[in-house]
């Protein structure tokens, strides 16, 4: 009798398609680096919010570990022509409240993104002019003009499908009780404390889910986050700071997953935004290039991040399909930097004030940069500000230089257009260069990746002449977890997917 039971259990295991599977009456506790904002995919604007969405909501498309776009709620797509995109939807999918997922739901969600008051998604899928339901499992998106980044957007927040009935009923409060078609449904949230999700039995890919509950806990202080992981109160921490890596490596109960991330850090100069642009560093490209030459990125990364980040000279990290290998940071060269300073016509010491958001690691990096550029003739002053002030100051053009990070997007457009094209929001210094504008616009028109990469290669050559932004380093995703936690697949966007994860006995 016992034997048959065992055999039956083994058979069940085989049936589920994996070897050591525990009884899954378990809770997975995940530590986040900060508290997410509202959990409405149309209104949310935070990075950590995307991590929680991944547990709750499926998107039309997703990324795999190589950053290729793969099907999720859409099974395939085809471009009838560059302005007509057909999406084929997955059959037999339902939302967590039982409502059926179909073409109407896609139309509802995308329309909501495009029209809702306060929507942060308008611009991201702004190329869509009409959404036509062909049949219950087929949607056609009509575009105003060709828009190659659109597919990537549908693998991001705009691609998150929400239950139309629930969304209609809740209106702007939908984010307080979101209903999606993902593996876990929303249970409760106590702001700044925890977000609890529970397994959605009707999930279309239910066999990939091996936890009953997921709890997300925001813990801002990195040392405290690590202490919780070490104490066992957390199972996984989505971000371990580089300097804590040795501690995790040393701990026999823990393990690490590391990959390059899409995010980067850089210095944006004010070249053209109001009176503050009238500074030597704002007016002279020579000085900006000298500034770059005085920075030893490798040493900087070694000191501040234990060498775990990657030196870059472009916005797209090495892991991206849009990375241009020929664009490399030049090694530190003080003599050349001094020559450029002399050529600029400005007399050293050149005073530069840099705004730095007051997180400890950035202040540390800024002070290292301060020491590095000094021999080249720069007198760098650091102005630490809390983040919200720094954003507003930069947006108002009230700065000379700004040390600021970007969480990064898989599609190159999301890392470049709004930063370097004139007239866009993240282009704090109001940098404007017709050649760069044209190249960025061109890159949007073709869907061929190799062709786009070539356009970006030309664009970077232009960018490095003027150097409105000095790209410093690409960040890394550093996930810490319990040793028994299995099946974690690391996607470079840093978002934690729960599919396939389980706790070994």
């Amino acid at each position, binding site marked *: 009798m016992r034997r048959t039971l065992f055999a039956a259990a083994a058979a069940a295991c085989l049936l589920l398609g994996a070897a050591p599977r525990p009884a899954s009456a378990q809770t997975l506790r995940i530590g986040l680096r900060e508290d997410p904002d509202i959990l409405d995919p149309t209104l949310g604007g935070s990075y950590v919010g995307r991590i929680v969405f991944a547990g709750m909501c499926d998107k039309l498309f997703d990324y795999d570990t190589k950053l290729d776009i793969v099907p999720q709620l859409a099974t395939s797509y085809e471009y009838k022509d560059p302005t007509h995109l057909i999406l084929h939807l997955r059959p037999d999918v339902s939302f967590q409240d039982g409502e059926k997922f179909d073409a109407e739901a896609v139309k509802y969600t995308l329309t909501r993104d495009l029209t809702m008051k306060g929507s942060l998604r308008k611009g991201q899928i702004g190329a869509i002019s009409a959404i036509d339901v062909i049949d219950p499992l087929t949607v056609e998106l009509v575009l105003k003009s060709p828009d190659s980044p659109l597919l990537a957007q549908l693998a991001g927040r705009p691609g998150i499908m929400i239950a139309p009935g629930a969304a209609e009923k809740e209106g702007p409060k939908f984010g307080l009780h979101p209903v999606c078609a993902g593996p876990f449904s929303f249970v409760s949230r106590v702001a700044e404390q925890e977000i609890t999700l529970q397994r959605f039995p009707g999930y279309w890919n239910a066999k990939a889910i091996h936890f009953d509950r997921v709890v997300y806990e925001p813990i801002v202080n990195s040392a405290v986050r690590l202490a919780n992981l070490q104490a066992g109160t957390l199972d996984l921490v989505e971000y371990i700071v580089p300097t804590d890596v040795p501690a995790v490596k040393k701990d026999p109960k823990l393990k690490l997953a590391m990959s390059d991330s899409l995010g980067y850090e850089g210095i944006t100069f004010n070249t053209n935004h109001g009176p503050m642009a009238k500074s030597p560093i704002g007016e002279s490209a020579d000085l900006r290039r000298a500034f770059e030459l005085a920075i030893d990125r490798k040493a900087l990364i070694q*000191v501040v991040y234990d060498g775990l980040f990657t030196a870059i000279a472009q916005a797209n990290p090495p892991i991206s399909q849009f990375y241009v290998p020929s664009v490399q940071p030049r090694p530190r060269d003080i003599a050349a930097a001094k020559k450029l300073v002399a050529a600029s016509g400005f007399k050293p010491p050149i005073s530069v004030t840099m705004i730095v958001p007051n997180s*400890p690691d950035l202040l540390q990096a800024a002070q290292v940069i301060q020491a590095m550029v000094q021999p080249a003739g720069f007198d760098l002053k650091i102005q630490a500000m809390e983040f919200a002030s720094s954003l507003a100051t930069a947006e108002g053009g009230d700065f000379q230089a700004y040390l600021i990070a970007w969480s990064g997007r898989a599609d190159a457009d999301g890392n470049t257009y709004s930063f370097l094209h004139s007239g866009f929001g993240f282009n704090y210094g109001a940098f404007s260069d017709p050649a760069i504008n044209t190249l960025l616009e061109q890159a949007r028109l073709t869907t061929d990746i190799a062709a786009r990469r070539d356009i970006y290669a030309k664009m970077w050559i232009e960018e490095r002449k003027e150097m409105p932004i000095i790209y410093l380093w690409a960040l890394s995703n550093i996930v810490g977890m319990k040793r028994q936690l299995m099946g974690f697949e690391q996607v470079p966007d840093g978002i934690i997917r729960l599919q396939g994860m389980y706790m070994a006995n």
Partner: protein
Amino acid sequence: MSSAALAPSLPPSPPPSLPPGLHVPESPTRVALRRFLTHRSAMLGLALCLLFVAIAVAAPLISPVSPIATDWSAIRQPPSWAHWMGTDEIGRDELARVIFGARASLLAGVVSVVIAAAIGVPAGLAAGFARGRTDAILSRIVDAMLAIPFLVLAIALAAFLGPNLRNAMIAIGVTTAPIFMRVARGATMDVMTHDYIEAARAVGNPSWRIAVRHVMPNIFPPILVQGTLSIATSIIAEASLSFLGLGEQPPTPAWGSMLNAAQQFLTQAPWLAIFPGAAIFLTVLGFNLVGDGLRDALDPRGL
């Protein structure tokens, strides 16, 4: 913030102009001074304060190296003969930074208290002296300011003025002013009940003269005590603001911002948190001891 409770229980020292019949061998000021100088813990506190003041003033002379000289090949090194307190996150000598950090802390402590007293004492004097509507209005403002969490007020003010040491001092000074107002008001009201004020009035002295000549000297002792104790809390407040990134700007060292940076290396480099913290503790302890000693010396009842 024990000050609110402190005010009503502190009687003024006897007025300097004593009625003629009473013969006192020593002036009250000298009595207080003698009491203070023989107060052992107060002397210990004074020694601590003077030590840190000396460190702050003579920082360039006693510091082994520059507090901003970086050495990237030697980051986060534990205490050693070369670096008595180890090195910080970008390889600067921690001892040098603790020594120079005394400047920001002491400056913040003293200047914010001066600002607080400059705003609070005249307001309290006016409220206690004039009473009536003036008192009601000033007291409501003070109530309102004290009802807002101190740090929230200070953070908002510091963020508004822009983060640097000067503005942190203003923020702390303004948020501490209500305490001085309360102490000055309470002491003034107490003084006003004394006969010599009546006497001064009867002789025909104008109000301002009574306020300046008779009230001011007599509310001085509690304000001095409060001032010393407030230096202690202001040093902690400056450290708290620096800790939140709203104080002295890098690379200039401040104990609070050093602690803020140290927080992320708590496990790997605990000494980075321990030394600046200990420096804050000892300085604040010094001022608290002096404050206590002053109170004992100035208040015959020995609270």
